[in-house]
């Protein structure tokens, strides 16, 4: 049973994101305005409450932190100026570092594919991104028809665009630590 406050998680999140989740008084505006709430396992105001109660494992394993689209509607409307989308970013990074089971593996595979593409070419190239994501997620047969239409409409370029100074981009990934966004 959850019956007491536990400030440890809340303090760690504040160090990471600068956000004071203790200020949340459960007005629930964040959940009422969230465009993705229909697909979430925890509503945003529940995430805030569980941070106050230090429910770390449940939060790091939930779907909500990955389904949050970072539209920032909640952050804009919060009467206590909590950047809730920023808190979600903090929880996502903590989940990746913790090694806990990730609820939305494909969302993480997408981010990993996206960042890997930048790491090696310096730019986002649609065919590189889609190819990597399909290989990682094994969703090989999704969007085949759409892919054909996009090739026809020249929306997918066959030759990838690259920065000239790729070493400089690699250096950014090396020095910011988590090279593949893990």
């Amino acid at each position, binding site marked *: 049973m959850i019956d007491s406050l536990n400030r440890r998680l809340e303090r760690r999140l504040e160090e*990471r994101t600068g956000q004071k989740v203790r200020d949340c008084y459960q007005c629930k505006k964040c959940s009422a305005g969230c*465009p*993705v709430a*229909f*697909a979430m396992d925890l509503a945003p105001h529940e995430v805030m409450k569980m941070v106050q109660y230090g429910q770390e494992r449940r939060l790091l394993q939930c779907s909500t932190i990955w*389904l949050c*689209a*970072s*539209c*920032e*509607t909640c*952050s*804009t409307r919060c009467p206590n100026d909590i*950047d809730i989308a920023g808190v979600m*970013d*903090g929880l*996502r*990074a903590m989940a*990746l570092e913790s090694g806990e089971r990730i609820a*939305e593996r*494909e*969302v993480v595979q*997408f*981010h990993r594919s*996206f*960042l890997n593409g*930048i790491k090696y070419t*310096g*730019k*986002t*190239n*649609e065919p590189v991104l*889609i190819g990597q*994501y399909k290989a990682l997620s094994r969703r090989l047969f*999704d*969007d*085949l*028809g*759409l892919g054909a*239409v*996009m090739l026809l*409409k*020249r*929306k*997918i*370029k066959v030759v990838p*665009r690259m*920065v*000239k*100074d790729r070493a*400089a*981009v690699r*250096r*950014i990934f090396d*020095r*910011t*630590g*988590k090279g593949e*966004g*893990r």
Partner: protein
Amino acid sequence: MTFSYYPGCSQTGSAEEYGDSTLAVCRALGIDLEELPDWSCCGASSAHMTNDLLSVSLPGRSLAMARKAGLDMVVVCAACYSRMKIAQRRILADEELARRVEDAVGEDPRYAGEIRHLLDVLVNDVGFPEIKRWLRRELGGLKAVPYYGCLLVRPPEVCFCDSVENPTDLDRFLEMLGVEVRPWSFKTDCCGGSLSLSRTDVVEKMVNKLFVRAEEAGANCIVTACPMCTANLEMRQKPGTFSFEVLHRTPVLYFTELLGMAMGLEGAERWLKSHLISPLPLLKELDITV
């Protein structure tokens, strides 16, 4: 008017029509855009959702180039605009962070110039009276819902729009072009772009809602200033496996394309042809020539 220009990846790839129409209208209006040499990707949603320092350092590399160029900078992708502005704000406000970014980038990222979205420059610097002098074609019959999406308006501390809940910048721009603007309540609703490939099932619901609401509002087109929104709206109307069925025929257009069409610029037909939902049948029906 001379700016540094950060094109962003989409504008040379899946949203080439946005990049091309941007260059064409700026050239015609006398706005000089000097592309940053060897710019790189801003990292978009995937960086800030997984690695905070990376999400500031990736834009930091391009900000360092902008600092060297010494000009204000124009961005057209709403996502690049947001990442650039947020990174700039944080680097200038937090010297410890600035030093860490400088270490990662290898150059000084403390760029203090203004980062502007092209819509902001057109509405607030060039101004409607000046733009109107260049209009050559009527766009009568087009009924648009302006779709701002998220990153043009949020967070309001970094964005230019006149209101975070009910912005009117794009509305007024379209009215100036002679387009009928239909009122709707979904101007700033999220399309779910960052989940488009990974949770397609969720995104289809978000996208279809926007089309249904646009049609209910009496619109025959949706106008955006973001390549992520446009790609997502055009792609995610229907489950994608093996098929590409289109539920809604409402075209999604960039504000720069409409401006280019109204100015009678060459190339407009090429831009319009590259859309997944072709706007050409609608334009033919309305007798609008490009």
